[in-house]
């Protein structure tokens, strides 16, 4: 029973991180109908930015509250900028082209980032994973029984941060002027442009928010894993994407539910079956979902306009 509870907690903690990344996929998909393949790799770049900042701050400062905030701010801001640049120079010129061209571009960017960061030329970090500094000292937040169930402080923190960001996002999309513009662009960006909505700006900002969220999630993931590597973007990104599809891509709460679900299933597979199968789980679920309910749990398969 205690074991079950522990897995439940670990699964939820992992799920919240997937959820933050999945939100980026779902938002960009919402406005552009594009699967932003490079999303996970943008996240990876953000984590390296945070890593570099932590280094620059030094062992003492990086653990202070201000230090941590600064690390998060740099990573999220840097990523937002990166997202902006990618959108501006790679996706925007292709917006009216066949969907396949944008998809190929996204795959290309993902590949360039994840393998570019494996080089050890110049500032690039090289392929080997590096230890991520313990900017948040892991402490036991809650212990039940004789260490039967342990809840760590970072688990609580990532849960709080994730929930906070999600609530904020929901508020942004449904309660603000910008959110209304976003939804209009999502519905039909050409018509939205005719209605005087600055679609370019809306899309750019959406990219920036998505990328910033990803950087935050990436840092949480790195803190949990205590490591950072160039390929983490690919794996976390793919799983987050699977989560978004499970929930119904383009559907914000769906992405969260899908991510939590995925986090739990993975945790239980690792806990009760074998950890080596962990990476296959997400894709197994993906294929299953596509077979049974291709639109995801909450989405619908939109009929193409004829």
């Amino acid at each position, binding site marked *: 029973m205690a074991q079950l509870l522990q897995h439940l907690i670990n699964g939820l903690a992992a799920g919240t991180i997937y959820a933050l990344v999945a939100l980026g996929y779902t938002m960009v998909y919402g406005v552009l109908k594009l699967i932003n393949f490079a999303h996970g790799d943008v996240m990876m770049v953000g984590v390296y930015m945070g890593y570099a900042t932590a280094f620059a701050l030094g062992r003492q400062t990086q653990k202070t509250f201000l230090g941590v905030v600064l690390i998060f701010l740099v990573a999220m801001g840097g990523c937002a900028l990166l997202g902006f640049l990618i959108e501006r120079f790679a996706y925007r010129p292709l917006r009216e082209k066949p969907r396949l061209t944008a*998809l190929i571009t996204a795959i290309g960017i993902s590949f360039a980032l994840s393998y570019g960061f494996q080089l050890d030329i110049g500032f690039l970090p090289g392929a080997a994973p590096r230890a991520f500094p313990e900017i948040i000292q892991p402490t036991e937040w809650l212990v039940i029984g004789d260490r039967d169930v342990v809840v760590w402080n970072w688990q609580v923190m990532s849960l709080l941060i994730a929930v906070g960001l999600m609530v904020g996002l929901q508020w942004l999309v449904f309660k603000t002027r910008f959110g209304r513009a976003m939804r209009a662009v999502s519905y039909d960006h050409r018509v939205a442009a005719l209605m005087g909505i600055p679609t370019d700006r809306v899309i750019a900002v959406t990219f920036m928010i998505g990328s910033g969220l990803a950087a935050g999630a990436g840092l949480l993931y790195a803190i949990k894993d205590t490591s950072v590597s160039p390929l983490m973007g690919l794996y976390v990104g793919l799983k987050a994407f699977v989560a978004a599809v499970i929930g119904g891509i383009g559907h914000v709460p769906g992405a969260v539910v899908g991510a939590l679900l995925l986090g739990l299933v993975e945790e239980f597979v690792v806990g009760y079956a074998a950890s080596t199968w962990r990476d296959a789980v997400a894709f197994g679920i993906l294929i299953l979902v596509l077979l049974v309910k291709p639109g995801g749990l909450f989405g619908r398969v939109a009929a193409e306009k004829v």
Partner: protein
Amino acid sequence: METSSVPTPSPGGLPPALRGILPVLIAVPVLLLFDRLLASAPFATYLLSIMGVNVILAVSLNIVNGMTGQFSIGHAGFMAVGAYVAGVLSLSFKETALSFLPVAASDQVFLVVALLAGGAAAALCGFLVGLPSLRLRGDYLAIVTLGFGEIIRVVVQNTDAFGRALGLSGIPQTSSLAMVGFWVFLVVLVARRIAYSSHGRSLWAIREDEVAAEAMGVDTTGYKVRAFVVSAFFAGIAGGLFAHFVPIINPGSFTFVKSMEIVVMVVLGGLGSTTGAIVAAVFLTLLPEALRSAFTVMGAEGSLAQKVDQIRMPVYGLLLVALMLLRPQGLFGMKEIWEVLPRWLPRRRKGLA
């Protein structure tokens, strides 16, 4: 009365039963001759075999990504299935020989059987992966094929019969240049004949407008799955061949990187162009080798020569982005080399590796 759009091979008074397989009958002796000539040059043989495998992969992927307009990025997964199935079969029949044949011939028979088994296994996987995902819009296929590649990797790493992470070694090295060349030839022939049959036109139609194709009675999902199965079959063959001329196969040989390499070949050659895929595959196989030799000859930076393999990957990514932004149709677009080259020639000869 022949048309420009459907050039059926010229009848030339042959019995029709022969016409279908005539190209094969011509190709085999030529390939055998070639094989003999290069017998004393192991590196050239190896490089040409790699090139051949890459051509098979690119041409077969082009059937799905080019002709049908879908986007699979997990071709290496099917290659892995073929390699492991064929490899395990060959390993288990290593000591057996057909008594009524000379040893060399018997080896080749076993090789072909192993290859066909590998191809069939890959085709079956293609069917199982394709059926759920090809019903949906294109980008799902990309993700699912990518995921499939991962699943294969995980399965291999967890299966003793496949040597787990260490891989399989000791597979009889029975593949030859002639065998690789034969399959290259076969995949090209198949791609051409599909493309120029009315079935192939239906694939093009799906690429052009899926809704309209469906409305005109084309079973789009069925066609896509069939294209996918054929494509996976040849990827499996390519994997099987690969397993029979490299000393060891392990999960590292069939990663996402390999899939991307094939995708880059197809996109560079021009989505839909078989000759484009061939040219790009040859070019991209030779390029790293050429760079490596160039750096080594220059001698200045020994480490640079070793870095070629590393640098290749991000360059592939950037190449894709640049292609999409500047020349989305690739080298030849949907056309074949002989349709495009005459238009280029008068102005300037374009280097073709």
